[in-house]
């Protein structure tokens, strides 16, 4: 079994440390006691030796960032050891190994590489997860390997399971609680990067996958949150870094009611800047697509392509009966008829999805904020904003992905788009192509990211 190289505690008060430099590279052969890396603390720099002999692999402890004490920063493989045991494999770890895993003959000097690529997908019972996470996932009928773990080495914890369960696309509303709502001024005139200190991220966010290449940034729709992308990611390997954002008044972001699309776009821009996200593919769904188009049009963020899934803002009509009925629904009986309107095939409405939608009704503050947002952006069942003009002026590749049977925003609104904008229209698909046609949508997005 490979030997873990952890960030050691070199000082009594130390909770995190920084690796100031690595002395070895990925794949280097080390002997026990060889110098591996140097740790910097407030008081001193300290050199750390190899705890075992073998080949150093899976170096995850990057230089210059704060790393919790005890976290694995690399692994040492003995001669002939193929890969970490299944329980150590996380989407992140597995992914990191893949690009450096050429097909090497068994006689290679580094036999560890030979079979790494053919390591099987993590089986559910081998995923790294806490006992509590296992129990909750089993109860909710979720596969552990479909859940991205946020703990050390990708360990799935309670919050990850709860996040996976909470994938509502739209949220029920309750009477507003005005004291919980903060209205924000329009931000369209704010200079880039919107007068925020470098490092602050106005929007809650999560890297759903780590990787190399062009990052994909995901913006969910009204009433959903960043976890709503997880079902799509579960269907296939994703090798691009994948950042999901929570809109204001949604998920873990501040319970604010933005003044307009420009104000939200400014938050997106500041978040991307603070996270140092380079040239990216921006993806939005529904209301999030209108936000994405606005970000692209403002030109502050470095975007190379734009994908709009069932976008809002292409026409005035939106299913007002759905919005009204959905926000009033309190029980499963009253909710289900409206949830069915979201999709063409109701089989895709999983039990965890329905339960999560119902459970979220408990967060009255969140629902109050979203009620205000709905009143502002979809007043009287009308889309009060228009992104057609923005799309016409864009100079980056744009693709629009819609379902022909969308009963929330009519597919007919995607007619008459500018000629350079590509349109994917999936038959027998409703308002959530990324759920109903998840394999195809993921494939399109990955193609765009690689282009």
């Amino acid at each position, binding site marked *: 079994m490979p030997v873990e190289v952890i960030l050691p505690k070199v000082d*009594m*008060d*130390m*909770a995190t440390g920084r690796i100031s430099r690595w002395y070895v590279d990925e794949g280097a052969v080390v002997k026990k006691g060889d110098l591996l890396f140097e740790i910097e603390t407030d008081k001193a720099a300290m050199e750390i030796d190899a705890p075992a002999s073998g080949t150093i692999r899976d170096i995850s402890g990057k230089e210059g960032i704060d790393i*919790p*004490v*005890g*976290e694995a920063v690399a692994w040492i493989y003995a001669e002939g050891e193929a890969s970490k045991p299944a329980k150590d494999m996380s989407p992140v770890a597995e992914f990191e190994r893949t690009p450096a895993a050429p097909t090497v003959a068994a006689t290679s000097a580094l036999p560890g590489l030979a079979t790494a690529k053919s390591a099987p997908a993590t089986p559910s019972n081998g995923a790294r997860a*806490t*006992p*509590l*996470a*296992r*129990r909750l996932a089993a109860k909710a009928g979720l596969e552990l390997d479909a859940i991205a773990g*946020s*703990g*050390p080495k990708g360990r799935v*914890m*309670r*919050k990850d399971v709860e996040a996976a369960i909470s994938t509502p696309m739209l949220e029920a509303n309750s009477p507003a609680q005005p004291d919980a709502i903060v209205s924000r001024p329009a931000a369209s005139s704010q200079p880039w990067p919107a007068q925020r200190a470098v490092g602050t991220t106005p929007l809650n966010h999560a890297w759903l996958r780590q990787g190399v290449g062009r990052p994909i940034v995901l913006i969910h729709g009204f009433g959903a949150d960043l976890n709503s992308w997880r079902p799509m990611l579960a269907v296939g390997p994703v090798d691009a870094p994948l950042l999901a954002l929570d809109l204001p008044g949604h998920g873990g972001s501040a319970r604010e009611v933005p003044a307009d699309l420009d104000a939200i776009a400014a938050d997106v821009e500041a978040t991307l800047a603070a996270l140092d996200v380079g040239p990216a593919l921006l993806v939005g769904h529904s209301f999030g697509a209108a936000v994405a188009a606005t970000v692209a049009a403002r030109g502050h963020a470095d975007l190379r392509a734009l994908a709009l899934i069932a976008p809002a803002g292409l026409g005035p009509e939106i299913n007002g009966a759905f919005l009204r009925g959905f926000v009033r629904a309190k029980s499963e009986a009253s909710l289900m008829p409206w949830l069915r309107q979201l999709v063409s095939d109701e089989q895709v409405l999983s039990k965890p999805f329905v339960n999560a939608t119902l459970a979220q009704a408990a967060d009255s503050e969140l629902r109050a904020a979203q009620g205000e947002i709905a009143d502002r952006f979809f007043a009287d069942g009308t889309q009060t904003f228009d992104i057609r003009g923005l799309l016409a002026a864009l100079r980056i590749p744009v693709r629009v992905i819609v379902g022909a049977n969308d009963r929330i925003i009519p597919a007919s609104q995607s007619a008459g788009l500018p000629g350079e904008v590509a349109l994917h229209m999936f038959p027998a698909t409703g308002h959530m192509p990324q759920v109903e046609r998840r394999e195809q949508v993921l494939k399109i997005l990955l193609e765009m990211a690689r282009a």
Partner: protein
Amino acid sequence: MDQAVRELSYAQAIQEAMAIALETDERVFLMGEDIGVYGGAFQVTGDLVERFGADRVIDTPISELGGAGVAVGAAVTGLRPIFEFQFSDFATLAMEQIVNQAAKMRYMLGGAVSVPVVMRFPAGSGTGAAAQHSQSLEAWLGHVPGLKVIQPATPHDVKGMLLAAVADPDPVMIFEHKLLYKTKGPVPEGYYTVPIGKAEIRREGRDLTIVATSIMVHKALEAAKTLEAEGIDVEVVDLRTVRPMDKETVIESVKKTSRLLCVYEGVKTLGVGAEVSAMIAESEAFDFLDAPIVRLGGAETPIPYNPELEKATVPQVPDILAAARSLATGSR
């Protein structure tokens, strides 16, 4: 009748418990080195020799094995001796009487006799008394069926648990952290007992359970205050008894918080917290754990004389803060 409550030190509370026992039960007597005129190595017996006479507050020769043997023998005959060690480290000298005699006699004689002896052990580091006078050996004795081993953390508890120990038919070993002797707290007047084998939740919380013993209870509570300001809501369980352990209270707490940190001064390996963590891993609480169990115990070393090194060998508040933060934030 309501009992008046005063502020007493931990040492005063012990002395008051012993005085009540001496007053109310003529079978009770005290033994120990320098506990008479000198008043005890830590002045716990104080002037009891003047109040109760040298027949009931007996100075023994410098022989822990001899003293313990006399105490165990006296207990077998029906007396209720309270035997004070000057330092818990010297339990090593009396192991034959404690482990092979006191703990075994009731079992080996088929219940024909019991051994109602109480032994008091000033324990722990922090006084600059170096390697042979600073240990925490409660896990040694906690390993022996037939003994009861307690670690009261407050003046209230030490009085009530000492009186419960005197009333107990079996040998009870009390580990008193030396740094606790001067700490103060509310203590009711008169006779009361605090049950042996029952933990106490000192602070309720949602995010993390700290099971602490003796002086570590106070350090954990101090850490909990800081963590509260950071939004980490800590539950602090004062274990109070090492044997028999109150499994139920700890299990229920961990089921609530899903995270367990054990903090104890004894050497980490094979210590009290090792037992608590193994007990939880075996229990129904396992399926509620959302993070690995973490132990903070004493370093794997004799206690150093140098005061800075001495502090560094046992868990301190910053260590508890760091461990609790990493546990609560899911980074370990």
